[in-house]
């Protein structure tokens, strides 16, 4: 169903290499801020202002959007930029992957409620959504505090031998392994 680790490793490595060779290292979590900014600016048009004094040419009343010379404020004002379109295109990549996935007998192409969840919590769908919503809040709040996520810090970071990348990866796995073993149990099969 999935690529073996050698094919997968080469393709994953090529994706990260091509991105940095062509433009810059891959990163994702910043674009959640840009998406929030676009929605907030639609409600409050005064949020982002053109500002000749700012390094980016834009400033914001929000301290976060305004940081580093209004870098994020500019991306919110001009959403058709490389990094934002890159992340939107990842959605298409997922869709393409699904379309090209061969259906195996007796297995759904996409298992809407994961086997690991069913194994531990039966078919409690609302609990699954509760875990993913809360997970999303914690993941993105944490990623913004860290200044990057699995793509930007862990993969792109270690690729460049960044100190922050190694430390981020260690911190993330140190928290993730016990959490996964606690929530989803460390016994039982991996199939159902």
């Amino acid at each position, binding site marked *: 169903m*999935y690529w073996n680790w*050698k094919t997968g*490793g080469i393709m*994953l490595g090529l*994706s990260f*290499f091509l991105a*940095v060779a*062509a*433009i810059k290292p*891959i990163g*994702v*979590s910043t674009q959640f*801020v840009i*998406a929030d*900014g676009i929605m*907030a600016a639609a409600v409050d048009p005064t949020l982002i202002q053109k500002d000749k004094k700012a390094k980016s040419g834009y400033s914001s009343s929000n*301290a976060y*959007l305004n940081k580093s010379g209004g870098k994020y404020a500019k991306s919110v004002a001009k959403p058709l930029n*490389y990094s934002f*379109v890159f*992340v*939107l295109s*990842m*959605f*298409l*990549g*997922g869709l393409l*992957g699904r379309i090209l*996935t061969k259906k195996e007998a007796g297995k759904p192409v*996409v298992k809407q409620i*994961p086997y*690991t969840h069913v194994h531990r919590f039966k078919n409690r769908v609302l609990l699954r959504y509760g*875990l*993913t919503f*809360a*997970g*999303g*809040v*914690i*993941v*993105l709040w*944490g*990623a913004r*505090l*860290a*200044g990057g996520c*699995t793509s930007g*810090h862990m993969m792109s970071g270690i*690729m*460049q*031998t*960044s*100190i*922050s990348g190694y430390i*981020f990866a260690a*911190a993330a796995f140190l*928290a993730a392994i016990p*959490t996964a073993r606690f929530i*989803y149990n*460390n016994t039982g099969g991996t199939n159902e």
Partner: protein
Amino acid sequence: MNNILLAIILGTLFGFVLQRIGAADPDKIINMLRLKDFHLMKTILAGIGVSSILLFGGMATGLVDGGHLSVKSMYWGVVAGGILLGAGWAMSGFCPGTGVVAAGTGRIDALVFLLGGLAGAGLYGLMFGTLKSTFLMMPLFGGKTTLVQTGEYPAILNTVTSLPGWAVAVLIGVALICIGALLPGNTSDNR
């Protein structure tokens, strides 16, 4: 080439690859983190190794512009944020990138994750004004620092080894691939 066209091509490729290696499947993530299935871990280690070898090899031969590198700063928030991201990753089976890709594969739980993510990122944006002057933002190890010399950033190993930086980076890349190869495999058949 036009930057937007490049973003579409490279973003679609990255999303497709993440789906193909199983990274957009929360079972694969959770089973990796439960230490039950190392298939994805092997792939990630190999992926980082391959990209690092190509990047530093490319820079050493002048084929890749070192100015494209972008090293992130090291500060206490990286540790705290990494711990939080790890906990939420294990809880949901998604990280920001794989959440987007999984939503693209038609997963409803991934859409819910993205909504949570937008809320989390928004909350951080509102809190940044008070967080920015705390110890969490204090640089560590000189902030934007790398292990080996890349050009513009300070490097820790610069004065320790006589090997050129790119060679050390290639060796680290090879080591990551070897660790990936040594991790137990052959579990991909039971997902």
